């Protein structure tokens, strides 16, 4: 009997780590190829640029992953980013201290997330629908507030932040670390993280085991909204304007990063490092394609093919054990 137990399939414990290493290897491979193929890729300037490009999607992808793990989806994050740039710009231009302006913007993101939770838990709306609805309405509200114009932010210190570096690493990338480490601890080492997985796997079993399913769902969408608002602040700093039509399609890039990073759209499978790597793989492809003078339209096609290939092989391995 005991031999039977031992002979059974190998533990899956290392699967996540292994998958993460595979992604990391892919990223490194891309970097090596691009360094050889182009002269400018390996330059400090370009690397900094790449890290800046990838950082914002990476943070969005982390929030998105929390939601996807519960079996949901958050289509609103791109719109929240655009909306948050408007809020931040208006507050700063109105003379609100930058610190307070950022805090209020983040709270707006939290409120949007809570609203999503309310729609799903209390009104029984599918996540796809409620977040699709906020996607389009937030863009509309932002356009109303700005009359369709961009708001230039007149605070140089605020804009300086996203352009500067700290010990040679762009500040924007430090923000990924700032978000990533607590997110990792939250998802993998707190009971709330466990509940995200259990709700995504089987909400009824979780409920019967005493897990507060509603609160778990509220939490996932709130964190996603918070991440999106934070990215909005970073974007406002980077481009120096508030504009509600910014970050068009970022929700899809965030979902793509998450999925490339091994998150299952059926829920209950995902990590924090996966989506981060996924976001930087996408950023590298875009960056490399630019340097290689590949038609920008091809970048979108490559991204699509990459999603299919990675998810297909991941699915094969999961099924085949």
């Amino acid at each position, binding site marked *: *009997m005991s031999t*039977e*137990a*031992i002979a*059974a*399939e*190998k*533990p*899956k*414990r290392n699967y996540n780590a292994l998958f993460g290493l595979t992604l990391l290897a892919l990223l490194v491979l891309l970097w090596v190829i691009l360094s050889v193929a182009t002269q400018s890729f390996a330059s400090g300037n370009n690397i900094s640029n790449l890290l800046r490009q990838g950082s914002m999607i990476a943070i969005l992808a982390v929030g998105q992953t929390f939601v996807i793990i519960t079996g949901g989806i958050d289509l609103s994050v791109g719109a929240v980013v655009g909306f948050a740039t408007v809020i931040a710009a208006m507050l700063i231009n109105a003379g609100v201290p930058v610190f307070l302006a950022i805090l209020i913007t983040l709270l707006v993101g939290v409120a949007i997330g809570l609203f999503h939770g309310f729609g799903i838990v209390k009104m029984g709306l599918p996540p796809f629908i409620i977040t699709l609805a906020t996607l389009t309405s937030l863009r509309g509200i932002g356009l109303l507030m700005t009359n369709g114009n961009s708001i230039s932010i007149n605070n140089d210190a605020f804009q300086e932040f996203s352009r500067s570096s700290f010990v040679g690493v762009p500040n924007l990338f430090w923000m990924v670390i700032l978000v990533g480490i607590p997110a990792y*601890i*939250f998802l993998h*080492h*707190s*009971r*709330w993280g*466990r*509940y995200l*997985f*259990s709700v995504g*796997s*089987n909400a*009824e*079993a*979780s*409920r*019967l*085991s*005493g*897990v*507060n399913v509603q609160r778990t769902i509220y939490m996932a969408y709130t964190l996603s909204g918070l991440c999106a608002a934070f990215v909005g602040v970073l974007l406002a700093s980077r481009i120096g304007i508030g504009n509600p039509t910014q970050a068009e399609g970022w929700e899809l890039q965030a979902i793509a990063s998450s999925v490339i990073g091994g998150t299952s759209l059926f829920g*209950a*499978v995902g990590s924090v490092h996966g989506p981060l790597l996924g976001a930087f793989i996408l950023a590298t492809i875009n960056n490399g394609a630019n340097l290689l003078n590949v038609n920008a339209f091809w970048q979108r096609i490559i991204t699509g093919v990459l999603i299919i290939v990675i998810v297909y092989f991941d699915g094969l391995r999961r099924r085949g*054990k």
Partner: protein
Amino acid sequence: MTSTAQELHPAPTLEPGRTILELKGLEKRYPGTHALKPVNLAFKSGEIHAIVGENGAGKSTLIKLLTGVMPRTSGDVIWEGKPEALATPHEAMALGINAVHQEVVLCRHLTVAANMFLGEENSRYGILQQRAMVKDAQKIIDDLGFDLPAHVVLGDLTIGQQQLIAAARATVRGTKFLIFDEPTAYLTRKEADQLFKLIRRLKGEGVTIIYISHRMEEVFELADRVSVLRDGTLVGTRNIAETNDAELVKMMINRSIEQVYHKEHFTPGAMIVEAKNLSGKGFENVSLSVRAGEIVGLYGLIGAGRSEFVTTLYGRHRKSAGQILWEGKPVQVNSEHDAIRLGMALAPESRRDQGLCLNLPVGLNLNLPIYKRISSNMLISGAKEKAEADRQIAGLRIKTPTRSALASSLSGGNQQKIVIGKWLAHGAKLFIFDEPTVGVDVGTKAEIYRLFGALLSKGAGIILISSYLPEVYELADTLHVFRRGKLVATHGFRTANHEDILTQALAEKQEKLGGQK
């Protein structure tokens, strides 16, 4: 196989009448369970053949094999003299084998007519001939004497009416062999009469009918022959004229008390929970109590209201009337949270749907109710998490390579141990086990029963729900019988006989007598 089974297993007597389907040593094994032991049986054209047996006796396995839903492990199926593989549902349908299931498996959002012709639509140049199909469907329905419109959306009909449509649908497909799986479970008497008329008419046309039912009076009303399954064994086949209620019931129940039932008696201690005239969705006016050291068994058919009663007690559903007393004090149980805080634990009926997070690790499943306790502030203590999981895995002898293996990779019995095991560390006082041994092999059953004894010895009380009579009979100190949402009888440990309990759970006769007072 026991000698009783041999005695009760005469060769099926073949009357004149063509044999349409013959089973030779048909057998099905799952990993860990022998769901159907070799069955030899011949069905004749134009007969109504009833199959009876307790839940888990192998009836649904037999249907799944005959309709090609699952492949058999060994044995032959001879259809009209030729051996057939029956590997896919399509193959079975092509031969003329169809089934009408207990749950309607049709498209609720399509019209009755669209459902009737689903997969064989009438189309001309690729365009659906909707009007013609509605007309044809209406004609079929009228011919059968069902008073139902063909143009309405199926979901607008009652479940019973949908069931009739499902039956009508099966008749238009060149069906020669039709299986009814508890078709009357959701029907009114009038709808059932219409269905019986249809069945007799099909019989007249030479169609072979397999009729599976728990309701004895229907078996005697309809069937020509009846076969009894028990624990995956075909116990015997009888001509309906040569048998009676009592004989069939005797054949259905295994009389030998197996060694698996390990009963420890404890002196009942303090009252843990009391339900007073509790009513809710699916049950009404149920009063019962559980003391420390006591197993309270709830017996009845599926849908008799037992699961609804315990899930309401557990706060999953709202009670409509009555009172719950916990350790003598009236309490409000508005959510599972309340129930768990009081000290209740529920191992629900369906492992897949309610019990487990299948695609998550064994350890996470085991620890789910106690994460609050093994974490300080918000952070989980990794060491405690591992220790708790390993302790349960070792204590319950859960066969898993590690605590990180996914729950889905374990066998049914070991999955069930997780469902139970997750409450052991929680320290509950009242354990509710809803069908804890469904799909579980005998060895694991014995382990689960021994676990009951261990829980009782620590002063816990147990509510045990089972559709398998020997289980509650041999284990329960108090046995309540449920029928149609009501608690109809109460017995002490082994104070009643099997036949009486089964009659109380099944029979309409009893109900009529009771109705006269």
